[in-house]
């Protein structure tokens, strides 16, 4: 029997900790080096905490409308942010403990400290216990990314904040300015507008969520306005002016906005510096992203990199997938990541779920090979209001959109905005993963009454066959 392989992993975020467990499952001995908490940004200061808080506002929104439903809740809805934060911390602690338990079960060693590569097979860890060298047969770098640090927006943790600070405020601010109307900016706008904060988003591009399908992002722009959020698109910040109680933003386009707090939601940095990469010859790109091949191996054999730090798709679940691929390759299997089917959620109110191409990308793709995009790409839509279950629960806002290739019926992309969108999109992701056609998705029996029927109807609408919809003539 060959000697057991030892793998050292830098970082215990959703990339590193998942890689560690998969490696242990495959028989490796694993050491994980993490300077902060197990679970990384996603679990401690990102996905999980923000959803824990947003779920309360979602409930509050429902309670505000409860009288229409026949549920009488005396008195107005008020939020105790300190208690919301305490509960969020408990949720995070439970999940962090869960990872520690898994590590113990798989005999994975967790070393607290900051690791850097001393040579191609050695990681030096500096922590509370001094310095220590760890020898490994292979090294996986999963150091992730960090909060914005732009000279224009000096983060001070009291007025100029990152999302990390906003997840730990215990007093609801009267007003909040969000610079950047991307995923994070819109999620925090939904959260704080729900809490009663006066929210303004400043976005450089002509739309919020500029990378999403245009119909989805224009819907989100409208939904934010419905929540009372001021959305300034095509707008840039010229300079900040601070007093003890307010922060004033002067806009390049003229005008100024004052608020109590400012969230900087642009420009995440990659954590590829100060960890010895230059010393061992790991090559990086212009943004500091570690260059890797499809096996997740860097330019140095035996050194792998995964997650945000490789700068491909900065999502927790992509990091996890890359982590599994990296260690499977280390352990002698052949694995690679498929980037064409990556479902993703945006946790705004209402929620967004997406997979594959936007309509604009699908049309460009057709044009690039000389096709008429009006012919090459077919789109089906169906509104939540047409779904029986949505009417029954009162979640009538939103729509399903299915984009297909006309010639083959292949599903190119699916975009959903509305209740449970991020969960619902996985049916489409599965269909795409196995190469099912839009007709096959439409023909599959969908249970009644469910929101998933909306996806079936949108797939039917690609062929103008949706049952509960007349194609709009206006």
């Amino acid at each position: 029997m060959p000697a057991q392989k030892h793998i050292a992993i830098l970082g215990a975020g959703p990339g590193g900790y998942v890689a560690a467990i998969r490696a242990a499952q495959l028989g490796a001995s694993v050491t994980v080096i993490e300077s902060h908490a197990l679970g990384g940004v996603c679990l401690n200061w990102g996905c999980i905490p923000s959803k824990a808080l947003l779920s309360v506002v979602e409930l509050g929104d429902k309670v505000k409308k409860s009288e229409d439903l026949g549920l009488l809740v005396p008195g107005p809805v008020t939020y105790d942010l300190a208690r919301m934060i305490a509960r969020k911390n408990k949720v995070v602690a439970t999940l962090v403990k869960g990872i520690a338990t898994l590590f113990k079960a798989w005999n994975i060693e967790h070393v607290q400290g900051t690791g850097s590569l001393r040579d191609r097979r050695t990681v030096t860890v500096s922590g509370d216990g001094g310095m220590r060298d760890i020898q490994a047969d292979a090294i996986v770098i999963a150091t992730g990314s960090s909060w914005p640090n732009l000279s224009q927006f000096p983060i001070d943790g009291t007025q100029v904040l990152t999302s990390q600070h906003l997840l730990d405020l215990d007093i609801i601010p009267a007003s909040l300015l969000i610079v950047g109307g991307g995923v994070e900016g819109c999620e925090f706008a939904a959260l704080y507008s729900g809490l009663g904060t006066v929210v303004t988003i400043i976005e450089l591009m002509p739309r919020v969520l500029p990378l999403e399908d245009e119909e989805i992002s224009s819907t989100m722009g409208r939904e934010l306005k419905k929540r009372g959020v001021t959305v300034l698109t095509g707008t840039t910040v010229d300079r900040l002016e601070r007093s003890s109680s307010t922060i004033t933003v002067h806009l390049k386009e003229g005008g100024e906005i004052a608020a109590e707090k400012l969230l900087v939601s642009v420009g995440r940095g990659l954590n590829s510096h100060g960890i010895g990469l230059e010393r061992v010859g790991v090559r990086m790109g212009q943004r500091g992203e570690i260059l890797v091949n499809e096996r997740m191996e860097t330019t140095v054999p035996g050194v792998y990199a995964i997650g945000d730090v490789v700068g491909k798709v900065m999502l927790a679940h992509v990091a996890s997938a890359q982590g599994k691929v990296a260690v499977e390759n280390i352990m002698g299997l052949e694995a690679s990541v498929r980037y064409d089917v990556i479902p993703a959620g945006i946790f705004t109110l209402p929620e967004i779920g997406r997979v594959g191409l936007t309509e604009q990308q699908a049309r460009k793709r057709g044009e690039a090979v000389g096709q008429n995009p009006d012919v090459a790409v077919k789109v089906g839509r169906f509104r939540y209001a047409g779904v029986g279950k949505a009417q029954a629960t009162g979640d009538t806002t939103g729509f399903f959109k299915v984009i297909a290739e006309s010639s083959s019926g292949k599903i190119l992309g699916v975009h959903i905005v509305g209740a449970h969108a991020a969960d619902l999109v996985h049916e489409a992701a599965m269909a795409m993963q196995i190469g099912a056609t839009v007709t096959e998705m439409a023909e599959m029996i969908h249970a009644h009454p469910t929101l998933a029927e909306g996806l079936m109807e949108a797939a039917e609408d690609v062929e103008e066959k949706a049952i509960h919809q007349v194609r709009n003539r206006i």
Partner: protein
Amino acid sequence: MIPKDLRYHQEHEWVRVSGTQATVGISHFAQDALGDIVFIDLPKFGAVVKAGQQIGEVESTKTTSTIYTPVSGTISKINSDLKDHPEVVNSDPYGKGWMVVIDLSSTNEVEKLMTAAEYEAFLASQKKG
């Protein structure tokens, strides 16, 4: 359901002119086609608009539709009641469902819009199409 004293745009907006001001709304035909209206996004007070330009959106339970201005000028009044009661556009499209008032930059544009009779014929021709 097509008031005689108004002028109409091919995107189904109406205009009521009084001096150098024009009140703008959407027609009965438009509200009926849209169905139950749930949200109306209107332009900002003071915005300068050009005839044919998109100035807002109407969202109904069925669809979302763009509001175009039939005339050029400056937005001088917004019907803020529509924020909480967008359904008024369904019940009273030519009255309480008005959307904005525009200070006209030129009254000539109004003459180019359809009269009630022309709009009626336009709707009939659309149906056939």
